[in-house]
């Protein structure tokens, strides 16, 4: 199977959907000629023109609000939010407008839009360009949240998102754009609410999102050399969340570590860990562990930044303790 980068996968997904449905359009900063600073959208404006690939001023609330209105009136906009940190700017339009319109109108108005943004630290981009804020939006009823962990997921989830009649927010890990993975040429969609078991194991379950899936895989390799078999679950979408797959895994292994790049406290890991504790309680042989980014603003210095996120060694160490029963 051919291998393409995550950037190429996103580009393909958007292009295919824009060919399929004339109502799909994309707006954001430097999306047309420049194809965004990450060059993910290069070439789209050549095929679809500036009517459908629209460069906006630096007005995040403005163009996000525009997208909400356009979605309510027949368009299917994709908003490109250059950095996930800028969610702070668009919160009213996403939370108060997009998420609630269908409900507040008694089901009569739809907002079929996609907000495409990123997350992930260790790029030396410092505190205001390195955050992973997806937990905030998982908390809002009416939104769907997708977290691709490789080029394959990026393509399949983006296509599903564009066809979904609800506001969907997709978080791509900005450090993964050049990473390749096998992606079929034939059309495929990844349904929301279906987790992927990336690796089977019997001793401990790792539930990991986005690039933390790779961290989990690294840890699993280390542990395999010590006779500990880790199972890795990639939820792929946090809302809706495939609880059943996660619970079944933990029932089998009796131990779990949830790994996510949001901050350690009050985040995605807490939610998933709580659900595991609720539904697999009598099968747990070790307390459920959460591993997130340190509760500090992301530091700039390379000596410090890498300390703040989970690593394969860190995950392996925690897993060992879980298996040994010393937690």
């Amino acid at each position: 199977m051919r291998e393409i980068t995550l950037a190429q996968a996103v580009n393909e997904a958007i292009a295919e959907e824009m060919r399929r449905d004339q109502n799909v359009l994309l707006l954001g900063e430097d999306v047309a000629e420049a194809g965004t600073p990450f060059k993910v959208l290069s070439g789209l404006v050549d095929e679809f023109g500036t009517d459908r690939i629209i460069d906006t001023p630096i007005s995040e609330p403005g163009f996000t609000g525009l997208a909400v209105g356009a979605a309510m009136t027949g368009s299917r906009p994709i908003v490109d939010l250059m950095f996930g940190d800028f969610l702070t700017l668009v919160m009213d339009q996403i939370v108060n407008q997009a998420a609630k319109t269908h409900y507040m109108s008694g089901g009569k108005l739809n907002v079929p839009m996609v907000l495409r943004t990123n997350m992930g630290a260790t790029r030396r981009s410092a505190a205001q360009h390195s955050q992973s804020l997806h937990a905030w939006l998982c908390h809002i009823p009416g939104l769907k949240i997708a977290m691709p962990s490789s080029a394959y997921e990026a393509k399949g989830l983006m296509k599903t998102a564009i066809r979904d009649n609800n506001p969907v927010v997709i978080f791509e890990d900005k450090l993964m754009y050049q990473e390749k993975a096998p992606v079929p040429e034939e059309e495929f969609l990844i349904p929301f609410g279906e987790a992927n078991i990336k690796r089977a194991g019997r001793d401990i379950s790792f539930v990991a999102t986005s690039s933390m899936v790779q961290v989990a895989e690294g840890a699993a390799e280390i542990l395999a050399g010590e006779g500990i078999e880790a199972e890795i679950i990639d939820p792929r979408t946090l809302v809706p969340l495939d609880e059943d797959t996660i619970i079944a895994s933990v029932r089998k292994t009796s131990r779990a570590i949830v790994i996510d790049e949001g901050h350690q406290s009050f985040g995605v890991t807490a939610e998933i860990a709580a659900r595991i504790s609720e539904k697999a309680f009598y099968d747990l042989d070790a307390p459920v562990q959460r591993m997130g980014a340190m509760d500090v603003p992301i530091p700039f210095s390379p000596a410090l930044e890498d300390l703040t996120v989970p690593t394969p060694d860190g995950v392996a160490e925690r897993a060992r303790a879980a298996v040994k029963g010393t937690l």
Partner: protein
Amino acid sequence: MARASKKNTEAYLRMYRQMVRIRTFEDNANQLYLSGKMPGLTHMYSGEEGVAVGICEALETTDRITSTHRGHGHCIAKGAEFKQMFCELLGKEEGYCRGKGGSMHIADQDNGNLGANAIVGGSAGIATGAALSAKRLGTKAVTVCFFGDGALGQGLLYEVMNMAALWKLPVIYACENNLYGEYTHVSEMAAGELTARAKAFGIEAFEVDGQNVLAVNTLTQDLVARARKGEGPFFVLLNTYRYNGHHVGDIDRAYYRSKEEEQEWKENRDPITILGDFLTKEKIASGKELDTIRDEIKSDVETAVNYAIEASYPPTSEVDQHVYAA
């Protein structure tokens, strides 16, 4: 004032009816609140009828509006029915939003009302986006974005006006300047010239007496026609006044508005009276005919109120429905 042709006569009478409908609706809604029958809060439009009616009468059903927290007037002016509106205000199943939106989020999609918005200026993006859709879909639909003088403080408004101007979107920004943002006078909240804001983006800006419904309507017809041709966006500043408080519970207002000022507007600048006087003077309708119109509407409204009070709430199973669209 334009010459009273037959076509105009019908239009004028329609406008009169619509304004009376709004006024009567609001009086009843106010009563529902004061008598403890309406949950939550609502915001009265009484006194501003000329703005909503003047503008909406220049629009087709397929044109769109976005509204504000003070949205009953826009909703009625754009074609909504009393029954479903009262049901919505009381949270009943037959409301426009199945009781799930309430006064501040009332929407009437079939008539092109994309919804009231509880966030000040919150619908500016939505209106501009609707105009974007209209342009690229080639529907020729025009969108009117209603907002108050208070929303001139919101950054979002300027962001979307900037984009609307850059992309020549068919949207009319209608600023209803009722002189007060909640409890503060506009002169204390908005610096400089109000219309200069739009002009800064190269948007043509107009100012009109909001209490003169015919003037509002004439101007709007002109701008809508131009917007359909792609000459938009436009900005209109409509000077008007709200008789009631900011919300239905804002009864002791003397500390920020004098009773004299309120009286002055009610007695000398009432849009319904002004149009009524015009109609009788031009012999388009007699005083008695206008009375009849008012009585009919009063009766219609009362029927609708009673209906809504008796109507049932949505079933409890609906509480977690409509979170997501299929």
